[in-house]
């Protein structure tokens, strides 16, 4: 039953949430209807690796690193997109799950440069993954066709996040898409034209969601090339964009008293983690 009641803060209408109970690794957990298995895992504090998942995007469940074992299911299921159902019995650390996660990590690590991906090394050691036993990723120079951000395809794991952020999950520009198929698949503009020739509006929301640094601020790229990129020396300060009146929350990543990257928290009710070209790149005047 859905019923309506005024919401305290908004006076708007909200549905009263129904909750369901399921079991994860032998522990019962209750979550609102519509939650995913991943939500339930997080509620229990079960650490689940994710790569193609982001709080502010529709799950595409393409990377498969978050798979879990669901009783009654022939195959493993992607926890990021599978809706939790009452009485589900889920295992997150069974041999099948561990083996699948290990293999996903090896398949990725052997074909993509994951060196700049947060947590990747930790996960590899947690699941005893040795990507090199399947091969080593190919090298390719980054594509630099503008002064704001670069595309380093050697690091692209085809997680679709940038496509979603550019498309109808946020920006609605649709400058890039998954193109080609299978091993030839590539995220690109139409006919691979340069970004300045495409529909791109340089909001950088693709950069903001990229998990592997395949999309990087130009400044970050330059520092990495020079061997000067050092996240341990960086501070992150939350503030508000200096341009229009929307009030977008910015996180200024500063290294050596210089802004090197700008992000927005995905839980900000103003931005949902997304910015425009001025908010993301328009800080040159304080450099």
């Amino acid at each position, binding site marked *: 039953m859905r019923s309506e009641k005024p919401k305290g803060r908004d006076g708007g209408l909200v549905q009263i949430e129904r909750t369901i109970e399921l079991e994860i690794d032998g522990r019962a957990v209750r979550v609102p209807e519509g939650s995913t298995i991943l939500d339930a895992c997080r509620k229990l504090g079960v650490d689940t690796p994710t790569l193609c998942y982001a709080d502010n995007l529709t799950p595409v469940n393409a990377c498969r690193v978050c798979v879990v074992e669901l009783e009654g299911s022939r195959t493993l299921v992607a926890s990021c997109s599978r809706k939790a159902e009452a009485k589900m019995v889920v295992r997150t650390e069974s041999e099948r799950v561990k083996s699948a996660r290990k293999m996903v990590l090896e398949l990725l690590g052997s074909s993509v440069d994951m060196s700049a991906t947060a947590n990747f090394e930790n996960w590899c050691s947690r699941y005893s993954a040795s990507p090199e036993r399947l091969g080593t990723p190919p090298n390719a120079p980054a594509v630099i066709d503008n002064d704001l951000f670069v595309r380093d395809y050697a690091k692209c794991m085809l997680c679709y996040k940038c496509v979603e952020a550019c498309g109808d999950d946020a920006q609605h520009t649709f400058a890039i898409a998954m193109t080609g198929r299978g091993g030839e698949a590539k995220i690109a503009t139409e006919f691979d034209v340069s970004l300045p020739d495409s529909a791109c509006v340089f909001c950088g929301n693709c950069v903001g969601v990229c998990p592997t640094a395949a999309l990087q601020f130009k400044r970050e790229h330059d520092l990495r090339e020079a061997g000067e990129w050092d996240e341990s020396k960086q501070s992150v300060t939350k503030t508000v964009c200096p341009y229009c009146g929307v009030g977008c929350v*910015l996180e200024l990543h500063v290294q050596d008293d210089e802004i090197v990257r700008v992000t927005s928290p995905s839980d900000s009710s*103003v*931005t949902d983690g997304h910015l425009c070209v001025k908010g993301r790149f328009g800080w040159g005047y304080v*450099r």
Partner: protein
Amino acid sequence: MIVLWGSNARDTHPIFFHHVLRALKRGAKLYVVDPRVTSTARFAHRHLPVRVGGDIALANAIARTILAEGLENRAFIQRATEGFEAFEAVVREYGPEDKGAISGVDPALVRELARDFATADRAMICWTLGITEHHHAVENVWSLINLALLCGQVGRYGAGLNPLRGQNNVQGGGDMGALPHKLPGFQDVEDATARAKYERSWGATIPPNKGWTLTEMFRAMERKDLTALWVIGENPAQSEADAHHVRSLLTGLDHLVVQDLFVTKTAELATVVLPACAGFAESEGTVTNSERRVQRVRRALAPPGQARDDLWIVAEMSKRLGRDFGAPSARELWDEMREHSPLHRGMSYDRIEALGGIQWPCPDEASLGSSFLHGRLWEEPVQGPKAPFHAVEHRDPAEALSEEFPLRLTTGRRLSEFNTGVQSKGLASPLVKDEAIEVSPEDLAALALREGERVRVRSRRGAVIAPVRVDRGLPKGLVFLTLHQPESVDTNLLTIEATDPRAGTAEFKAAAVRIERCE
């Protein structure tokens, strides 16, 4: 349903527009009212190409349609509003085919918007400078308020009237009393009780009368009643209409202090320049956004050279002028302010942080803030004064088109640029192109121009030289420029300083110009 009126939010408020897009995905309808087919209009279900300056005629035509079809919210009008009869008498004349036709909008579109607006569960009107940069800005706004009152589309979640703020703290400036007639929290400066609270706190006397608006200041400069000026973070030498005139007034001052991050055109005229910190990255404090959400700004970088925090400069100035406030931190100052401002009282720094910003009014520390205003209009009986209708009539732009100046010049903002360009100049966006006078394909042909050709655009006040660019979204007779690149195209030499007497905004949206070929 969302009506974006005189707002190209896709380019000017991109992240606000994300929220609109999300609503569209959920099935909301979008109407865009704009003389140009903007990038915003491309996302709309319907675009109403209003004639520049025809907004009141359009709003009245919509109102008249709603009334003619019996779609108004009678109960709401009777309970919560006043002045309906006078309003009704005026809009009666504005049939979409009659006086409403001044708007230039197809009557079928007028009726469609009217019906959707009146029958939507929740409808919101958002506007930007397309409404307010006119010499009848306030009347324009009233005409939109009338529509919301007529249908009860106000005071409820998801309904209402929303001016989209153009700067990150233009709302906050008002909140804090940076208005000639207000103290912090919109308390009237002429209200002795309100004044007394601050006088006690500050140990100083506040002048009991309201001050001058920017326009009034310029008038005072003309009269030599105003001879010294302290400009903080503004660039009037480039941002104000009829720039020749403004610059001569600034030059004529006895003393001009400019406090800014940049050596702006205004700073170049200054007696003293006080280098300031960048608010968003070198200072502590708060700003208020368009939805009245107060959020924190923080220092992430050390300021360069001799740059000082605005707060330090003001305190220091005060000390040297004989009243020592000490060196308050931003937080201490904020706490003092909120003690006297009921709207802000519940907003401690800690709560602002914990709640991700708070929307005023937030009267105490139990309040979560308010996502919309005027809910009182739905109470039974209505608490406080009733909401007034304003009977407003269409008025032509101050400057009529003539044989000599046959083109209408309107101005606006582009996605990658900002105001007079001082902040956005360093942004190496591939979208930034050299400023150009944008014309419709019809005018390009009629004037026998080539794209890229440099032309002289002349108004009664001045002339600029700019290359020509075609914008297929412009109607015949309308040309477009921005203020972003005054070094190359000083658009405000052309604009008219016809200001709304109440709001003090100039009519940037409607000047009369002609295009001349350069030899």
